């Protein structure tokens, strides 16, 4: 291992301190580096270990002095089968107990400030390390932390580990927790239903691996050399990011493509080499869409790694880096690969740059990523059947989102600590799907152009920052000039569902002489769900006349009565399908002309399929 010379440490710290004011002045272009890291790590492929030296420069950006530092030790989540992560994980206990899924980080030495050995003062509580300071750290003051650590690797579980000769190294190094403006630490254990939250900074990471290994990482390669012990060291630098991941395998093939000035690297397993062109096409499409829709990707490169899935880890986002595990489906019929790629790349914007707190408000990255991914799917593969088009069965990304929402729409609100959701299905339904449907509903109500403007402005304003739900609501209200708080309040903080129904329609001839030839038409509307959203109602008469009305939805029911020249033909609530959140679109309309042919078709088709069922059921 080529250790970072101690003599150069002051130079590194000095360079960061010089950089800080520069970044401050141009904060639109760069992040303020609150927590910056220089790490030298060696991968021991025989012992399945990492050995590292880490130098952290941390700035107190809060308004108060602090007397403690908090760091995350994420690999400790795999120390036993009773850790928070393992307890919450949905994998069977039988698997969680297996020795191959044991891993941890050992903190061998901690030095604070000017060579003050603090190793004995550290307090480790599972995945959190507390470091009491000898003297308070004042606002705007900087502290240097030096940590020597080693990580015992496990078979890939979630985001860390190895699988044969492949290594996925995510959430691996001691990492600063986030210090809030009010001087309180935002620090949580590594939970199963949660991702992460960290401050921006600069990462200079030297990775030493056996010479035959191919390494992909966040950031760009600045230097590379061979060592005398048949290993090699690669130095990566990532600026304006809040995490650093790397993967290594001797089997990776590297494919490159320039997209909008970004160097895209695809690290591909040999068995998937023939898919490389297709994968890079999808990446290119996604980048072009997001660059033009939300704002330019500011980094010079991007890496996508094809990893073995293990127990998770196959579709993960990191700054400038994503992982995928290619599916074995025919890609022209089932476009799951494309969907995953669009989703993870969307996270470069919603997580990577607009870095919300994934512990506590995960919808701000997952919901936005699902919404973005669905828009790209529609743009690239059409509105319908853009995900599955197989033997007459078709499904769009939007359909899948709705399906996922309907699995558990009511157990939890969207805004909630990720680990406090009832279970993973509820977390998925709310944070991914309901949130995405909310954004779609919002877009339908405000118009797609204004929605694009909203997302562009939200990105511009909060790039390299940590916006909250309230920040998004504020931008929405500013852009639209309307108060959408009622919508966000119900959908994000409530568990109600949205369901409108046309309960009945009728027209009766008026009997009085003066009104002869006129009809008394009545439409009964009902709100079956708790969510109140104004809706449009379209009434069509037999003579073709169309009448549009609007109902504020505040009452549980609403009767529309009118005098018409002919009988009512049909009534539709939400005729333009704006309400993506409506839980049942089948009750959104009524017609006097029964759809007999539809029922006949469904009946005859079902009958035939049941005849086959009986045929095969009795042919054993």
């Amino acid at each position: 291992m080529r250790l970072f010379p101690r003599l150069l440490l002051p130079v590194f710290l000095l360079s960061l301190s010089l950089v800080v004011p520069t970044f401050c002045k141009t904060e639109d272009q760069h992040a303020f580096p609150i927590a910056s890291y220089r790490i030298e790590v060696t991968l021991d492929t025989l012992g399945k270990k990492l050995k590292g030296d880490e130098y952290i420069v941390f700035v107190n950006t809060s308004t108060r002095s602090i007397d403690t530092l908090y760091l995350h030790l994420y690999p400790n989540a795999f120390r036993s089968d009773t850790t928070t992560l393992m307890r919450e994980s949905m994998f069977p206990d039988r698997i969680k107990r297996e020795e191959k899924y044991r891993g941890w980080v050992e903190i061998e030495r901690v030095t604070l400030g000017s060579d003050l050995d603090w190793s004995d003062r550290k307090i480790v509580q599972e995945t959190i390390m507390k470091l009491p300071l000898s003297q308070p750290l004042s606002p705007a003051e900087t502290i240097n932390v030096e940590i020597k650590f080693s990580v015992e690797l496990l078979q890939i579980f979630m985001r860390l580990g190895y699988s044969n000769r492949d290594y996925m190294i995510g959430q691996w190094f001691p990492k600063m927790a986030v210090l809030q403006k009010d001087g309180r630490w935002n620090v949580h254990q590594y939970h199963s239903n949660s991702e992460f939250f960290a401050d921006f900074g600069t990462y200079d990471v030297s990775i030493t691996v056996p010479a035959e290994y191919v390494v992909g990482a966040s950031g760009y390669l600045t230097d590379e050399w061979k060592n005398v012990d048949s290993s090699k060291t690669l130095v990566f630098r990532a600026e304006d990011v809040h995490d650093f991941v790397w993967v290594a395998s001797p089997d990776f093939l590297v494919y490159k493509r320039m997209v909008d000035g970004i160097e895209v690297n695809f690290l591909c397993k040999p068995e998937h080499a023939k898919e490389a062109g297709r994968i890079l096409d999808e990446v290119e499409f996604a980048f072009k869409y997001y660059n033009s829709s939300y704002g330019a990707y500011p980094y010079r490169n991007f890496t996508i790694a094809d990893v073995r899935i293990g127990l998770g880890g196959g579709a993960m986002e990191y700054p400038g880096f994503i992982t995928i595990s290619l599916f074995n489906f025919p890609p022209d019929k089932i476009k799951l690969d494309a969907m995953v790629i669009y989703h993870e790349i969307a996270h470069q914007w919603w997580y990577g740059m607009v870095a919300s707190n994934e512990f506590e408000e995960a919808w701000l990255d997952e919901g936005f990523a699902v919404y973005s991914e669905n828009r790209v799917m529609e743009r690239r593969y059409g509105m319908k059947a853009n995900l599955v088009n197989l033997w007459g069965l078709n499904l769009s990304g939007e359909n899948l989102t709705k399906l996922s929402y309907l699995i558990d729409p009511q157990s939890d609100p969207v805004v909630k600590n990720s680990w406090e959701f009832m279970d993973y299905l509820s977390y998925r339904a709310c944070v991914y799907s309901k949130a995405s449907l909310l954004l779609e509903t919002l877009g339908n109500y405000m118009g797609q152009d204004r929605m694009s403007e909203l997302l562009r402005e939200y990105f511009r304003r909060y790039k390299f920052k940590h916006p909250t739900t309230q920040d998004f609501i504020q931008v929405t209200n500013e852009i639209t000039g309307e108060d959408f708080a009622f919508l966000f309040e119900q959908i994000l903080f409530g568990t109600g569902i949205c369901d409108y129904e046309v309960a009945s329609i009728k027209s009766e001839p008026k009997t009085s002489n003066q009104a002869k030839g006129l009809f008394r038409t009545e439409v009964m509307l009902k709100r079956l769900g708790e969510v109140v959203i104004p809706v449009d109602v379209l009434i069509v008469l037999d003579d073709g006349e169309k009448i549009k009305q609007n109902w504020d939805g505040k009452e549980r029911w609403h009767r529309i009565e009118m005098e018409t020249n002919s009988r009512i033909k049909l009534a539709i609530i939400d005729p333009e399908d704006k309400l993506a959140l409506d839980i049942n679109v089948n009750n959104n309309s009524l017609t006097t002309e029964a759809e007999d042919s539809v029922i006949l078709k469904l009946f005859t088709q079902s009958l035939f399929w049941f005849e086959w069922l009986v045929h095969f059921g009795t042919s054993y």
Partner: protein
Amino acid sequence: MTHILSSITEGVRNVWTAKFLIGLMFVFKLLSSFVLVFPLYLMFSSSFGANVKASNLLSGFDPSLVIDFVYHWRQTLSIYFFMLILVCGIIIAVYLFLSGGFWGILRDQVKKKRAAIPAELMENTLEEFSGYCGKYFGGMLKISLLMISLYLLAFLLVLIFTVIFGSITGEVNIGEVTSWRMIVRIVIILFIFLWFKMTGDYMRISLVENQGDPFWTVIRRAFRFVLTNTSATLSLYYILGLIWLGTFLIYLGSHILIQGMFPAGIFILIAFIAQQIYAVFISFYRLVYYSSQLSLYDRIEQ
């Protein structure tokens, strides 16, 4: 080969002579299907009967309507699926009862043919059919229970084969349906399952041909017959299978062909008639399977 082709033609002729079996088989399947589909019809009617957007379903599959349909009826559907399993169980039991009649009558046809009985005297009655149903029910039940264990054995063989094949040729991707590895795998798996299924047919033949013999003697004879006449039994089975596959492809092709040629209402009607004609054919063809195998058994045993 002559034996086999003759068995098929004789099988077809015998089934045609006992046409009422086709009717019975078809009516049984139609009624059973109707029982299964009726609750769904009520749900369809309630959800799509007066729904303007339901017309989307005329031109194809509209997932948004179907997803909401499933969500809306989720509790009813779970009860429905429970009912489906129960009713399927009853249907299988009823078919077990009826199968004694099918095999018995077709066996009679073969015997009468051998005895050169005039065609006008070859007609069977429903009374005879019912008699055979009752007479062979016990044996058919035992064979069906035995078949469950044989299918488990077949499943085990498939697993062993898959592991060995995979270790020799490497793992195969689900998407590579046209690769030789996948084709060979599917063909061999089908072969294993169909061999056991065919053996089940010969057990039933042995049962109706050897009335009064102990059950295990019947089974032993069936296995001995299949194993000593492997090429003949397999050839007959696969020739019949290929003809069936051909008719299915013709049906499927014609269904796709007429799609879009007619307005929705007329297409539904034409498709329904075509489906039911095909359902009648399938009933007929299953009896041809039975009858042809009976004929082959008779020829070889003679």
